[in-house]
């Protein structure tokens, strides 16, 4: 029996992870940590195996209080760290504190914590560089996106990922970093989800890259496998759906319209300003142009992870638009 701590409990992914952990009878207690009050964060949860703590991850004193307070009292052995600012427009010191400094502090505090033994860190496929002369199938040693002009959303994710990776093997913690494909679901900070909200989705003319999207159940499964495994390392977590961008637009019930690539940044900036959306074409330019699919071979071999739950696409594409080819 073990107790676990889940940060980012008020997010869609945190909530689903907590539900799944509560269903797992080998977990003694779940300490859920979120920014929202309990009633808004986990309205479903009525279990004596669940404790919810409201913590602002930008405040180091609160993190310290969490780990050496309830986490120590409950004998937490594993931390699932999923707390990040989802909003791509989020910038500034506070966002950096939540995205990066909280991770750094968790690592530091866990080092001298009496019960914590493992950290499962949810990272992102967006930390990888995508470009024409790099492999389309991305392995864990693929080039990272260290572009100086990258937005804070990307830079924070890369920095947090590298911070966790730097501690691997040198810390007494067992560390597992899961670089997950984009979760195509509401409330998960998915740029693609926001992009597909429009009835007409503009995409770079002449390009139709392969994309890979992950479902929430598969992400939860990967995190649980990482928890139960005794290994540490960095693992790509691909999703079941690998398809061209144009097909994903159609399967979402939208109309795709190819336009010159250099029109898209101002058009989507205008959309953000007028409609309050979050999608930034500049941030997604490369992956909307060149293919970048996570290779999950290592996760399959070591963690036993294979994606088995596809995205619940709103539209089953008719044969005319689907594979249309029976060999």
């Amino acid at each position, binding site marked *: 029996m073990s107790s676990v701590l889940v940060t980012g409990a008020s997010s869609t992914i945190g909530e689903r992870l907590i539900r799944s952990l509560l269903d797992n009878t080998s977990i003694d207690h779940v300490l859920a940590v979120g920014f929202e009050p309990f009633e808004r964060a986990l309205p479903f949860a009525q279990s004596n195996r669940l404790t919810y703590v409201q913590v602002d991850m930008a405040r180091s004193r609160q993190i310290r209080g969490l780990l050496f307070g309830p986490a120590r009292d409950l004998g937490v052995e594993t931390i699932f760290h999923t707390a990040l600012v989802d909003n791509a427009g989020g910038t500034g010191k506070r966002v950096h504190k939540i995205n990066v400094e909280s991770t750094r502090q968790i690592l530091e505090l866990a080092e001298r914590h009496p019960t914590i033994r493992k950290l499962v860190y949810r990272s992102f496929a967006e930390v990888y560089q995508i470009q024409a002369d790099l492999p389309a*199938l991305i392995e864990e040693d693929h080039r990272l996106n260290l572009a100086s002009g990258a937005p804070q959303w990307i830079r924070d994710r890369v920095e947090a990922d590298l911070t966790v990776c730097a501690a691997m093997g040198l810390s007494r913690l067992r560390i597992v970093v899961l670089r997950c494909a984009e979760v195509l679901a509401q409330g998960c900070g998915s740029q693609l989800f926001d992009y597909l909200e429009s009835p007409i989705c503009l995409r770079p003319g002449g390009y139709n890259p392969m994309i890979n999207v992950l479902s929430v159940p598969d992400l939860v499964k990967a995190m649980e496998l990482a928890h139960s495994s005794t290994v540490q390392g960095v693992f790509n977590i691909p999703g079941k759906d690998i398809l061209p961008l144009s*097909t994903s637009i159609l399967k979402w019930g939208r109309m795709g319209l190819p336009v010159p690539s250099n029109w898209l940044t101002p058009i989507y900036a205008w959309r953000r300003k007028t409609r309050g959306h979050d999608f930034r074409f500049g941030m997604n330019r490369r992956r909307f142009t060149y*293919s970048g699919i996570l290779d999950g071979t290592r996760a399959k071999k070591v963690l036993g992870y294979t994606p088995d739950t596809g995205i619940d696409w709103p539209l089953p594409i008719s044969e005319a638009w689907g594979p249309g*080819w029976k060999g």
Partner: protein
Amino acid sequence: MPVPPALAGYLASRMLRRETYEHVRGLRFADAGHGYDPFGLHPAFVAMGLGLTRFFYEKYFRVISSGAEHIPDSGGAILAGNHSGTIPVDGMMLWTDVVRQSDPPRVPRAVADYFVPMLPVIGTLFARGGVVAGSRGNVRQLLDAGNLMMIFPEGVPGIGKNFRDRYKLRPFRVGHAELAIRHRVPVIPVGIIGPEEQMPQIARIEGFNMFGVPYIPITLSPLPLPVRYHIHYGPPIPLHKDYRRNQADDPDVVAEAASRVQAAVQKLIDDGLKQRQGVFR
């Protein structure tokens, strides 16, 4: 609008002879779940590609091939051929020939220079037909998955050579030999006769960098001439048996292996030239 796969399949059925169409329907590939492989290949587009190249293959370049029995039915292998002709029509004809001649049909995964995926429309169409950008990672992953790779070890210097240097191979890069040794696959040498005369290049403008295209060729003919293509496949060179896997890291061994492949391709070219009765015949 993107071309839907069903339309691509329909067009293929209209453009191809019945037996060719049925042949290509036997194509096996690693479906990633939505009808495409992870690199973007779709069999309907392969069939459409065959349809689009049919006129050039059958009527214009009147391709004759020999030795296709050397192409393995399954498992990884590297087709290594000479590259020439100013524009890479030889790659297109070899791709077509392999799909048509192999039984069961196999799609050779052509390794293109990195600028190809940067080309709008063409990059996507090529990806649907199995072309991948020439990064080491892509090739490694495809070979590990048992694909048939199509590599032109001369690279761009081969295709861009002057007319007076025709059928003189440029020094082979050694990557294909290293990959064959490391991934335990044979190399099938391919000699392609004909493209050297299709578009004689007399000069070129350097420093043209749009989409990464390395130069603009100046040719005697604005379009490829209807030369006859002869494609000769040689017996597999068992680099995977002749060298140990760890020798893939030895530069001397890899260079020696690459020179064996180059010699085999040169021999196929020399023999083919002797047999050829004329540029257009």
